[in-house]
């Protein structure tokens, strides 16, 4: 479904990613782990079109999407839940969801999808008229996911959805992601919560210093000592 073939990304003169390749299959659940500054966000921003790539290519459903405008990439069904949620803070919960369904196709299905979201996240329904900036961290993250889902994604990419959340809330969110994957949604998850994300995902990649160092089934990675080393430098 999504194929990243040997891409390199630089900021100014600095190379943030070097020759990175990875694959997300249809109905896959891939966890991308790695320490801070390893280049995880750079990678999914490159997929979304927010970062330009220097070398390589990104292919989504047989279409080359590298270096296309972000709004066009989104219209193909590659939707990102950005790091730090990036909600529209002055807008209500419902308005955020409305913007999520901005593209023509999802817009047609707006009311049906809205109902679904409120089923999935009942707490958002309670707070539908509240400003998103006034929500708690967990609710904000749920809203960010719901906003992305409103766009009817084929591939959902999440950048650090557990950042700054209490463990129990993280657990709740990850459970929902697992459910979504079971209904057929492909997911690419970037997270600091190594254990939990490897627990729920099918496959995993370890990104270190701008390159993929390790990949395989999540269950294998869970026990791999190199993962712990990469995090704690032991």
């Amino acid at each position, binding site marked *: 479904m999504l194929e990243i073939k040997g891409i390199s990304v630089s900021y100014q003169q600095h190379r943030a990613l070097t020759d990175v390749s990875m694959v997300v299959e249809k109905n896959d659940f891939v966890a991308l782990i790695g320490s801070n500054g390893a280049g995880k966000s750079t990678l999914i921003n490159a997929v979304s079109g927010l970062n330009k790539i220097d070398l390589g290519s990104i292919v989504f459903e047989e279409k080359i999407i590298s270096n296309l405008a972000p*709004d066009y990439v989104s219209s193909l069904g590659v939707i990102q839940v950005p790091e730090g949620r990036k909600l529209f803070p*002055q807008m209500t919960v419902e308005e955020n969801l409305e*913007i999520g369904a*901005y593209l023509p196709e999802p817009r047609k299905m707006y009311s049906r999808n809205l109902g679904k979201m409120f089923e999935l996240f009942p707490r958002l329904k309670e707070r539908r008229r509240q400003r998103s900036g006034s929500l708690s961290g967990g609710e904000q993250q749920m809203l960010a996911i719901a906003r992305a889902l409103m766009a009817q994604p084929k591939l959902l990419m999440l950048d650090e959805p557990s950042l700054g959340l209490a463990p129990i809330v993280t657990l709740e969110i990850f459970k929902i992601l697992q459910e979504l994957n079971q209904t057929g949604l492909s997911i690419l998850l970037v997270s600091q919560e190594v254990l939990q994300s490897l627990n729920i995902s099918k496959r995993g990649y370890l990104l270190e210093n701008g390159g993929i160092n390790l990949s395989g089934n999540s269950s294998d990675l869970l026990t791999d000592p190199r993962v712990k080393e990469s995090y704690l430098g032991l």
Partner: protein
Amino acid sequence: MNSTLIIQSLISGVMMGSVYALLGVGFSLTWGVMKVINVAHATFGLLAAFFAYTALQAYGVDPLISLVVSAPLLFLIGCTLYHLLIVRITSAKAVIVSSMILTFGIAIILENLMLLLWGADPRLFTTSYTSKVIIIGPFYFQYPPVIGFLMSIVGVTLLHLFLKKTYLGKAVRAAWQQPDASQLCGINLKRISAITFGLAVSTAGAGGLGMGLLYSFEPHSHNLWLIHLFLVVIVGGVGNVLGTALAGVIVGVITGLSMAFLPYQWVNLLTFGLLMVILVVRPQGLFQSEI
């Protein structure tokens, strides 16, 4: 001091201020959300006023009706200008400075085009209602300011409703609250910017018409109007539509009240002095920022 004079000064202050507000909202929008200070904002308003004047003189078209043509026209001009020029400086290091110089150039060009087309004579809108008046008790409500006031209420409400209720308006707000995230939702930033700029310019048209109802105008009048713009936008908070609208009224009330209490020659001085104080004390404006 007697209360009738004070209240009458207040009334006309409110009406006058509301017209400043109408002229100011678009200016505030482009400044706040696009970081573009459009020094030519008032010039576009003046252009609409001259357009309306010609329509009135040559074809007897009411100035308000001419807005039906000039507002969309200005919207198009705004969009085109965005694509032709503004977009080139949005990536500059100091967008605000560059935008001021760029639009300063535009203002000079427009002013002198108007000078060529309409000449330097001062103009007034004179219609069947310009000298009419409504009298309620001891108070007088002149038609032109009342119309300006109503226009302002309608204009600001429409803009507010557009931003709050329509899909496109929400997209505009979204784009400025979180440019990256809005792109991830499929919003085309360039298109939205062009629309925002076009919209701002077309509200300038309405504002210019309002100013034309209150004051006589000449090709260089926009320089004076621009000062009012800075005044209301700074007081109201940059980027804040309702704040700007309220600020217009506040500036009007301050002017009105100072006319009731002070020797007239100190009125303008007081207004600018007060603005300086507001800037020092609350540089973010009097109202909470909201887009």
